[in-house]
């Protein structure tokens, strides 16, 4: 709620305050922080704060918020990183235009993310989920003059949006089979079955797209077109974690009974390797971090998706550690970009000497990423290895190997990042040689990354601070765990040895980076996710063009013919299945009916054949008067009266219009005329058959043919069998006592079905306005209406 207020306020303040609006914006995450801390104290006392309003109860859509430890953990990440990013953005956007829009979108995004992690209703969660997708579209594309930014924004929106739709389908399947949309209830008592298996896979699909997992990862590197604070917030710390959040929520209840766990683990492994591998060859610092993020998110997927409590502990620690180091690294890149106007490590270097503080921050954050003690990243890696070693099945060993290799990649690209940006001497000349003015960032600019990076150090040294939060989170995910003791130093054991091995291997890969680059060059031709996406988009556009070219010939006649044939073809199927009605009805009701009918058919045919417009119109009016005559025979005096009058007026209207037009129709070209005749004959045969069948239904009707039933009984005959009355019988009976009229047709029109009539006269009203507009609008009037009015008054 506060987020919305702040966002509106920022839009109101607009650009007048410049980048300082971000100070206002940070009120949002600050409020979230306060809420999270207070909620934490309440949860610590054992009660779960919940809030609930009913929105659309028939859909099971209830605004249902619920805070447990895991939500609080996520909320803390969102708010702490959010405050850091907002304070940083004050400097970053110092000279930019349109700051207010970015700021307000960022605040709304924080709000949506916050809502996502604390909502306890699957549908509500989906709403927030898509809200974050939409806002990320706005934020990535915030530099709307850059075509790359627009493409990237669209890419992100399409991928995450369609993933979100898959997820919605999964949610609905789960919700329907569990008979509730409450997340906590589902997690507590998970449904199972084939439908649920499909459903969880759909949910996993949503999570993969959001967390940029293989093969949907292509949008994340592209999204680096966004301003750096946006990347730092959305694409490292928060939005991409939504997928991880969802996997974490679903892992424990569904990992045993459904293929959810294995799928997540496999995809996570693939993302880890691919992300790490691609990160090694990036020259753009941001892209390097982006692929690193894909890799790290893959690791989180594996940790949470496995459904093992020890790995979940490691996952929670990694969530915190990653948020801290990745956001500070992004912010450092932002500083470099802002000051030197490049992010290419081939042109950077030697910055370490000029900016020792920034370099220190980067080293600390990268060390945490690489898993160097005593940072928090090391602790999370250690916990992960510890957990994997505990995994008794052979598959656990494979996963462990994959994680170890990916971690070595991580070490290597972390080193590459720091070296390339701050210490590389050889390439550093590119920056220094042409004496580009590279002003030092001011203290305020560096404050946020400094704080975020030092969080990694402080928490790494004193993991005690996290103990209750992490153990509470793991418990609220559904795992049964005793109290956890987090300690940086776990003694000499296999996990420590693995960590050391990974560090050594990573260092070796960094040293041998030239060789690796050569190997990577051989894989240039492999289709990338971006390429697949682009090809898909192109394909869809081409396909739609071709379909349009085929279906839209541009000729009204073709459209009408298709419509009419459809009208004939579809009802023919059930008609044919029922077979021939059996008996022919009596030929005519009375001799006069035969005469009228023959006249009508003749006149209708004449209307079609005549070439003179006037003759056609007259023939049509003969048909109309024939209709009136038939109505009289049928016993419908009201209809007959109306028909006569309408026909007269219609003829007048026709005559008034066609007096302007040429006397004869343009003689139709023979092309297509045969087709028109064929279609007409088909229609005529079908309607004839249909009418005869309708007759059999109505005249042999049981109670199910309600409206079209012949009314044969009257009041006197009507016995106690009230429930079999048709609508018509009821109207006949109720007309006099309740509506005080004996003309049943009129009573139906103005009373029983009065709303229909109201609609009808509204149609008349609208049609009249439309006609007047069509004829009068734009035409100069030869005589002004007011003059005529004057005459009328005079006379």
């Amino acid at each position, binding site marked *: 709620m506060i987020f919305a207020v702040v966002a509106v306020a920022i839009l109101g303040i607009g650009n007048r305050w410049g980048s300082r609006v971000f100070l206002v914006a940070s009120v949002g995450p600050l409020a979230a922080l306060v809420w999270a801390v207070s909620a934490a104290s309440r949860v610590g006392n054992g009660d779960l704060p919940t809030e609930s309003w009913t929105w659309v109860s028939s859909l099971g859509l209830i605004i249902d918020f619920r805070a447990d430890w895991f939500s609080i953990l996520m909320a803390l990440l969102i708010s702490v990183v959010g405050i850091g990013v907002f304070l940083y953005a004050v400097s970053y956007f110092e000279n930019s235009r349109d700051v207010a829009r970015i700021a307000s979108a960022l605040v709304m995004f924080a709000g949506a993310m916050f809502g996502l992690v604390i909502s306890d209703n699957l549908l509500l969660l989906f709403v927030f989920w898509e809200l974050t997708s939409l806002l990320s579209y706005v934020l990535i594309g915030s530099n709307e003059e850059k075509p790359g930014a627009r493409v990237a924004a669209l890419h992100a929106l399409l991928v995450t949006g369609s993933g979100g739709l898959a997820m919605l389908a999964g949610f609905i399947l789960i919700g329907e089979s569990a008979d509730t949309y409450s997340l906590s209830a589902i997690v507590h008592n998970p449904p199972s079955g084939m439908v649920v298996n499909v459903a969880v896979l759909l949910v996993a699909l949503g999570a993969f797209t959001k967390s940029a997992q293989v093969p949907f990862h292509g949008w994340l590197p592209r999204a680096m077109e966004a301003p750096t604070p946006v990347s730092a917030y959305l694409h490292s710390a928060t939005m991409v974690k939504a997928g991880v959040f969802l996997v974490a929520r679903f892992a424990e209840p569904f990992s045993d009974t459904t293929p959810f766990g294995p799928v997540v683990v496999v995809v996570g492994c693939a993302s880890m390797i691919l992300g790490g591998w691609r990160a090694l060859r990036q020259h753009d610092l941001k892209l390097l971090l982006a692929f690193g993020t894909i890799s790290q998110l893959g690791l989180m997927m594996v940790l949470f998706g496995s459904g093992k409590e020890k790995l979940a502990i490691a996952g929670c620690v990694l969530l915190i550690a990653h948020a801290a180091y990745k956001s500070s690294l992004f912010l450092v890149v932002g500083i470099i970009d802002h000051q030197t106007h490049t992010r290419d490590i081939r042109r950077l270097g030697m910055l370490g000497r000029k900016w020792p503080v920034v370099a220190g921050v980067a080293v600390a954050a990268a060390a945490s990423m690489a898993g160097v003690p005593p940072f928090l990243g090391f602790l999370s890696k250690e916990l992960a290895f510890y957990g994997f070693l505990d995994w008794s099945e052979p598959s656990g060993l494979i996963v462990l190997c994959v994680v170890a290799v990916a971690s070595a990649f991580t070490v290597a690209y972390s080193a590459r990042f720091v070296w390339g940006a701050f210490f590389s001497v050889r390439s550093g000349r590119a920056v220094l040689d042409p004496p580009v003015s590279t002003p030092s960032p001011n203290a305020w600019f560096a404050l946020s990354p400094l704080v975020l990076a030092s969080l990694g150090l402080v928490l790494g040294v004193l993991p005690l601070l996290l103990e209750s939060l992490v153990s509470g989170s793991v418990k609220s995910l559904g795992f049964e765990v005793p109290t956890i003791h987090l300690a940086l130093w776990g003694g000499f054991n296999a996990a420590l040895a693995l960590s050391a091995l990974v560090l050594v291997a990573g260092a070796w890969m960094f040293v041998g980076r030239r060789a690796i680059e050569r190997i990577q060059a051989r894989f240039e031709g492999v289709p990338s996710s971006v390429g697949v996406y682009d090809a898909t988009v192109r394909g869809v556009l081409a396909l739609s*063009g071709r379909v349009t*070219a085929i279906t839209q*010939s*541009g*000729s*009204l006649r073709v459209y009408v013919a298709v419509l009419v044939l459809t009208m004939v073809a579809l009802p023919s199927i059930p008609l044919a299945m029922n077979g021939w009605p059996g008996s*022919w*009805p*009596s*030929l*005519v009701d009375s001799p006069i*009916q*035969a005469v009228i*009918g023959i006249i*009508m*058919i003749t006149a209708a*045919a004449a209307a079609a054949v005549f070439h003179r417009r006037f003759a056609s*119109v007259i023939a*049509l009016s003969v*048909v109309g008067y024939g*209709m009136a005559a*038939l109505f009289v025979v*049928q*016993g*419908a005096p009201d209809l007959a009266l109306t*028909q006569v009058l309408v026909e007269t007026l*219609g003829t007048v*209207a026709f005559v008034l*219009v066609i007096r302007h037009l040429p006397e004869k129709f*343009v003689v*139709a070209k023979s092309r297509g005329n045969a087709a*028109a005749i064929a*279609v*007409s004959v088909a*229609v*005529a*045969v079908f*309607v*004839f058959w249909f*009418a*005869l069948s309708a*007759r059999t239904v109505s*005249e042999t009707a049981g109670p199910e043919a309600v*409206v079209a039933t*012949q*009314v*044969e009984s*009257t009041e006197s*005959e009507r016995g106690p069998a009230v429930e079999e009355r048709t609508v*018509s019988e009821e109207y006949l009976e109720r*007309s006099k006592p309740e509506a005080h009229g*004996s003309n*049943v047709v009129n009573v*139906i*029109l103005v009373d029983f079905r009065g709303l229909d*009539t109201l609609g009808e006269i509204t149609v008349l009203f609208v049609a009249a306005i*439309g006609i007047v507009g*069509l*004829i009068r609008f734009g*035409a100069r009037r030869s005589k002004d209406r007011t003059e005529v009015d004057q005459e009328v008054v005079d006379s």
Partner: protein
Amino acid sequence: MTTLVALVVAMLYGIGVYMILQRSLIRIVLGLSLLSHGANLLLLTSGGSAGVAAFIGRFTGDDKVVDPVPQAFVLTAIVISFAMTAFCLALAYRSWRLTGNDDVAQDEEDVRLAEMIATRNGKP
């Protein structure tokens, strides 16, 4: 519903469709009128064969009373189809004023799109 009425309905539909498939707007409007006549007649007569009009007090227990519900529907339909016919007439009139004829033109957007696709596919 008698066989003859069914035949009349069928002919009204058939001729109506034929006229709608013509190029002249006036003919299309005439065709629409014929179609709506056919539909009205079908609706009315599917309610049963001819009988005594449904006025309370005007029929006795032995009379065959006509179903009033289709009649009410058709009454509404007559007026609405008149409104539609008049509207189409106005359209035809305006089309004539603007283009000098009352023919239905091809949709230029669609034709252009089809040509565009065709030329693109034509290129290797």
